[in-house]
């Protein structure tokens, strides 16, 4: 678990450093996600020298198990920030009703647009792919 944690934190730290250093508009942890993806790719590549160098927990599935455990409880990590929101709801007092309507409608529109565009483009791509093969 410690090896997994160290690797995950290392990816995040490098991500933060890159984001800050280059003034990127992407959050450090998201860059860290990309770095972790790259690590997994290199690790599993054929004849990867990493397989001889890395400690066992990073190779035998322990890392994957730890990652799954974190992701299974993603909701938990929003609780502290969410509690902070409750204390600041007074900020919404003057415009509360309007903001509530905007949040509901725009979130619904956002979900709807994304899912419909995804679905129609994916149908289009698949149809074209099918024709190309046939």
């Amino acid at each position, binding site marked *: 678990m410690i090896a997994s*944690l160290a690797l*995950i934190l290392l*990816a*995040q730290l490098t*991500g933060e450093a890159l984001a800050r250093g280059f003034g990127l*508009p*992407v*959050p450090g*942890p*998201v860059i*860290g*996600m990309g*770095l*972790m*993806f790259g690590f*997994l*790719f290199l690790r599993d590549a054929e004849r990867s020298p990493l397989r001889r160098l890395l400690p066992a927990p990073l190779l035998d599935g322990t890392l994957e198990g730890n*990652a*799954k455990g*974190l*992701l299974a409880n*993603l*909701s*938990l*990590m*929003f*609780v*502290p*920030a*969410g*509690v*902070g*929101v*409750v*204390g600041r709801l007074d*900020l*919404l007092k003057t*415009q509360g009703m309007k*903001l509530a*309507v*905007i*949040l*509901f*409608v*725009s*979130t*619904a*529109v*956002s*979900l*709807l*647009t*994304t*899912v419909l*565009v*995804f*679905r129609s*483009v*994916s149908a289009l*791509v698949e149809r074209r792919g099918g024709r190309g093969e046939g």
Partner: protein
Amino acid sequence: MAGGDFSLWVYLARTPLLWLTVTLTAYVAADRIAAATGRHPLANPVLVAVVFVAAVLALTDTPYPTYFEGAQFVHFLLGPATVVLAFPLYERRATVMRALVPMLAALAAGAVMTLVCVIALAHLFAIPRPILVSLAPKSVTSGVAMGISAALGGDPTLTAILVILTGIIGAILVTPMMEGLGITDMRARGFAAGLAAHGIGTARAFQVSEVAGTFAGIAMGLNAFVTAILAPVALHLLN
């Protein structure tokens, strides 16, 4: 005797242990309730746990900074949890690569529509500009949204509130909406959840299916990037 109890409380309330325990216990209880309702969208574990903790803080008259001293250990895990989104992404990289074109199209359409919709509604309701600026990045994960809002002259605290509320609203809306529309493609459903409702939507998507969660994580990361570029442009065009 009452004095003794009180000094024990004063001691405990100052250590991170108490509030860390309260946070974890509230979450376990909220998750248990969510499981008992068959993961009903309204029994959103974030929402329920927040209500529990907020009730405890109100009853004990505890200020938020005191609470956060304990809860920060949980809050800290948001970063590592984002990093490990690489795992489902890596495991399903073939599925993801096949969906690259629909993903990019949905990303562009979703990010633009969200901004247009927010700005149009804000105009309709005559929302003052500083609030509008704070509202614009509401679908983006909170750290980035606060940065966008601050850079454009908004109020980052207000943005954080709007972001969390958007996440909870999105997580509650997504499942009934998709079921109502008869959409069974978990890639599309997850991608929409992550784009509209960032990490809270992603957490919801993982409850429904791992494919949905994977796509939600990608959408969350991509939207943070795209909205950070689009929001200043959209607000500039407005002037």
